[in-house]
């Protein structure tokens, strides 16, 4: 019994020593999932702790350490709120795997997209009552060359 109490004290002591050894930023705690944003979300609260810039009412986040969309690293995200709703424009790291992963994920969630193929780009669009998701890639002879952007529009 006595032994166990001493063990508990020792554990607490050791725990405190390790905890206060080095104060660091809680990087994991700052990771924000952009797919969780809804029309009601207060953007500054959602991204609390993450640095941003604001210009002409558009909020921009550019630190990829904290930005994820369905687990994919987001390079930059711009968020515009207007009377019509919220427009979230995301840029990724131009990886074909990111594009494939997101296209698969969005198809799984919202069904097959409307595809609009043009000479040098392809648009994929998923639409529901409350949102639209438009994925745009540059192409050359229908083959992926660049992941341009993904624009999510949330309606009122």
């Amino acid at each position, binding site marked *: 019994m006595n032994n166990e109490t001493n*063990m508990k004290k020792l554990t607490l002591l050791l725990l405190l020593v390790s905890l206060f050894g080095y104060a*660091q930023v809680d990087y994991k705690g700052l990771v924000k999932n952009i797919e969780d944003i809804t029309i009601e979300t207060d953007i500054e609260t959602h991204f609390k702790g993450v640095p941003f*810039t604001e210009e002409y009412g558009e909020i921009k986040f550019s630190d990829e350490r904290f930005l994820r969309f369905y687990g994919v690293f987001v390079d930059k995200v711009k968020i515009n709120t207007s009377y019509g709703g919220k427009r979230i424009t995301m840029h990724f790291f131009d990886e074909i795997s990111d594009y494939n992963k997101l296209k698969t994920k969005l198809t799984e969630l919202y069904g097959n997209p409307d595809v609009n193929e043009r000479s040098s780009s392809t648009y994929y669009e998923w639409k529901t009552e409350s949102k639209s998701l438009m994925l745009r890639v540059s192409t050359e002879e229908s083959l992926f060359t660049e992941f341009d952007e993904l624009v999510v529009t949330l309606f009122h």
Partner: protein
Amino acid sequence: MKNIITILVLSIYTTFVSCDSVATNRYNFAEVKSSSQTKALIAKMILENKEEDIDSTSSYIELNLKGMHYADVPIKSALITDNYTLLTTDTVNFSAKKLLEVLEAEKGLTNLNNSYSDDVEFEWKDEIETKKLEVNFVNGKHLAAFGNKDYGKLTITYNPVYTIPLAKIHSKVKVFDAAPKYLLYIKSYNSVFDISINDVRIAEDTDSDSFNLNNYITGPNSTIKLTAKTEDKTIKKEPNTYYRDPSFSIEIIDNSTKKVVKKIEEISIKNNIPVNLKLDFNSTLPYYPKAWTNGADLRNSKDLKEKVIALYTKLGNAILANDEQAINDLFYQKDFEVQQLDFDTNFETARTKWEAYLTILLNTYKYTLAKDFDIEFNAGGKLIYTYAKDKSDMLILTGKNYDDSFNHFLYQPKGSNELKIIR
């Protein structure tokens, strides 16, 4: 329980092992907080590394010593000049990631800037120093996927230390949850305006489209008086040509929330007859300045001209005498109230202004005063503004390849016999 203790003991052991490596980490740049401390560290390094034959005679010094580090992140090379210190980490062991994390633990998170290359830059600025970190990717993809060879370049510059209150206004500025900034917006076509707020004339014949109102508000109830006139009377209604009457619309907005406080829809100026408007609005500032509220009514003051001349003479003499304290005393109330009304806690605002005053002190060798001027009474006679007639401005400063001028709103606190600068 035993397992937990084993893990903790191991982690503490690791800490001790890394502490041991600190023993060889002799030169910690993270502890340096000024140019003089940098010099002391250089002296220590030279003394302890005589065999390295460090050249300390030139205006910069390059060091590649073992044991240099920034809060335990090894520094491969240091370039130290009179103006800055540049530290470069080695291209091993995720040094860029570690240096970034150490700086973020020390200074907090800040926005990144992408440079023209693939590098990423961070900057932390405070009263004491500016630290700029450039993250160079070698085998890493980006900040969320650092490579072990990515390295960092940290540039440190120390700011001059000012003790004069006028350079440190931010430390006195009170912070409030709600901090409205009232702006008057005018949209107009072929119109000019005379504008006064709370009986303070802030513009005459102006075609500008926005005015900061906070600086002229001293209580919750405000009144704006505006006269709109035709700007170009040669534009006339003629057959077969497009014509529209001069017109304008007005909004008072709170720029902190972008909310419209008051709105006047489009009004036309017919037949060039000026339009007079009076707008009352209520402000909810968390701070109302004393400003000229305790000022004496100067309308019947007999020696007012002499007092104006005395004030600008005092300012001119303070400038010629390089009297920093006198400059502080002349401008503190005005600059404090203006920065507080802008709810601006940035340390750079007053510092930049102070450095501008210092430039004036350094450059000016002569001043000239207007002796003939008109006095305009504002705010029920408590506030005056003067219009020089014999010179281009009230106080003109001259220096080599330089000139400057001053003209301010003045008031006289009750019980005092001297005018003070207030806006």
